[in-house]
């Protein structure tokens, strides 16, 4: 089974990824599945509450994250796609999931995900990663923890420099 790097108690660990990514026309095989936003929003009967496995939604860069507003109950994971690592729309999607939609489940980064973006991703609220560059949890932790200070508020609750300065 493929693996996933998960944030865990301030560090990162490798866990088994139990989710299967379902194409829009594929039948629900049961178990943990991730479906597209369109399929999720279509109210596909197969995916009704009460199915035994967990449910995830994947967001393509052009998807409107706010379409999930009020519909996230019962969703275990949102997989934000980075078709190219240069495509930064996923950072906004994750941040809004956390801060505007109040999503508390897993937000995973999938696609062209590189350790050099780990810090930004964690700050935007991602807590699970499928790196494309072979990075393991140790590399991920090193990359994500590089910066002792940050200048802005984001989705991670870290105190920005201006708050640290006022705190003395």
């Amino acid at each position, binding site marked *: 089974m493929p693996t996933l790097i998960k944030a865990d108690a301030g560090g990162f660990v490798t866990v088994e990824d139990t989710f299967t990514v379902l194409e829009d026309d594929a039948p629900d095989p049961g178990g943990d599945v991730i479906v597209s936003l369109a399929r999720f929003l279509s109210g596909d009967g197969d995916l009704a509450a009460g199915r035994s496995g967990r449910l995830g939604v994947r967001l393509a860069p052009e998807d409107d994250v706010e379409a999930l507003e009020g519909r996230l109950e019962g969703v275990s994971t949102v997989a934000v796609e980075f078709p190219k690592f240069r495509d930064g729309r996923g*950072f*906004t999607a994750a941040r809004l999931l956390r801060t505007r939609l109040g999503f508390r489940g897993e937000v995973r980064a999938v696609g062209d995900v590189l350790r*050099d973006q780990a810090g*930004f991703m964690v700050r935007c609220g991602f807590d699970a990663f499928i790196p494309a560059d072979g990075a393991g949890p140790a590399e991920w932790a090193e990359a994500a923890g590089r910066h002792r*200070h940050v*200048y802005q508020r984001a989705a991670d609750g870290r105190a920005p420099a*201006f708050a640290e300065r006022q705190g003395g």
Partner: protein
Amino acid sequence: MYRYDAVDRAVLADRTAEFRDQVRRRLAGELTEDQFKPLRLMNGLYLQLHAYMLRVAVPYGSLSPVQMRGLADIARRFDRGYGHFTTRTNIQFNWIRLAEAPDILDALAAVDLHAIQTSGNCIRNVTADPYAGAAADELEDPRVWCEAIRQWSSLHPEFSFLPRKFKIAVTASPHDRTAARVHDIGLLLRRGRDGGTGFEVIVGGGMGRTPHVGPTIRSYLPAERLFSYLEAILRVYNRHGRRDNIYKARIKILVSALGAEAFAREVEAEWEKIGTEGDVPAAEIERIRAAFTNPDFLADPSTGDFEARRAAEPAFARFVRNNLKAHVRPGYGIVDISLKGIGETPGDISADQMDVVADLAERFGQGDIRATHEQNLVLPHVRLEHVHEVWKALDAAGLATPNINLISDIIACPGLDYCALANARAICVAQDIARRFEAPEKAEAIGELKIKISGCINACGHHHVGHIGILGVDKKGEEFYQLTLGGSGAEDAAVGKILGPALPIDRVTDAVDAIVGAYLRERRDGERFLDTLRRTGDAPFKEAVYADAH
């Protein structure tokens, strides 16, 4: 001036360590050039025609003498003894070895400098009025907001992978010395009806292939709401800006596709949702403001022998006429240092010259040095009684060319001499024009005339906003130059209009001469070149340049 505190230094140290590790991975073969490219670009490291180039940020164009000496040191140790100030008020070193790049970044960090976000699709160095804190016509010091923007935009977790690069300008004077209307965002500081401070917000200006003068999307934004508003603009852009075509990815394309009003509505709706959570607290703004309150000014308005020298020495008088500007305080002046010596490369400065500027700033200029987007330097606070001594020292170092805003004060990009993107040379064109108008009487008689030269359509030389713009194009392997007239990067911002067919390189200076000749014939009392052109239209100029061709 703002000084880094322990937090700022730690951010820089951590970022430098990160880049050192990335270079190590590249040199060890763990990263391919394709994977490394965006990482090095995040740190201002370009691969040019002949070598790596490192672009060092000069945040809002402000440098201390210690920093200037640090740059001189790098020029000597790691480059060929000089550096090049750019139209982004940054400095470039053109002859860098990759393996030494981390050491250079360490040397920069030792003087609180860096190359963070000097390239890549992120928020770049903010442009400020180079006369900030000194200009007689300023409402208040825009550097306070520039420094706050510097911090807010540094390593921004959400906005470091935008569709394209992003540039912000801030000015607080009615006379715009930042080219705010051709930035992605231009912030013009305004006084509110209630006496408060705010900004007129311009979005979607730009140059490149599709030049736009940016529209105003909000006429007054209370200053304390600046950062939530910037977040809203950047978020709308990050989500909706085009990513399918690099030439259509700047925010100007989004703004013009939606229309300024529809774009503004999107921003306002997003802003509403963000609320004050997105703002920087007043206490932090006040902390920054305190760093810019200059306690060292003398109340003494005396000017020593300034007037006597000026009356007695014509060369000094010429320097004063062209390179000295009015300061907000009596007894002080703003000294412009031209990096446009006749026959020199615009923006280039040797390590020894950097040291001279650093010394003068220390002795006579309150330790304050500015870089301008027109590729010159400024000593913003010089007592008039010291201007003569400053001038003598600049002159001895080849830095006293009295040509600010005159025809030989030319902006030029590095062009085909360095740049992998260029179609044609720009530097030698600038040099040739400057030589033609070398006689200072002649240049002064012509008056304000801004020539800007780009070696390709990316427009790093700002040709679109040149009073005379010159764009290098490639025609079947030969360098040709297209002339535009009537551009302006100032408060009357405008994009220049193409005059006629492109010219071969050996006809460019003659064409400029012909344009100048037509202006001198046509102008009425007190008219600048731009005024005459706007009155007459381009017919007399077209005739002057292309008459032979008929």
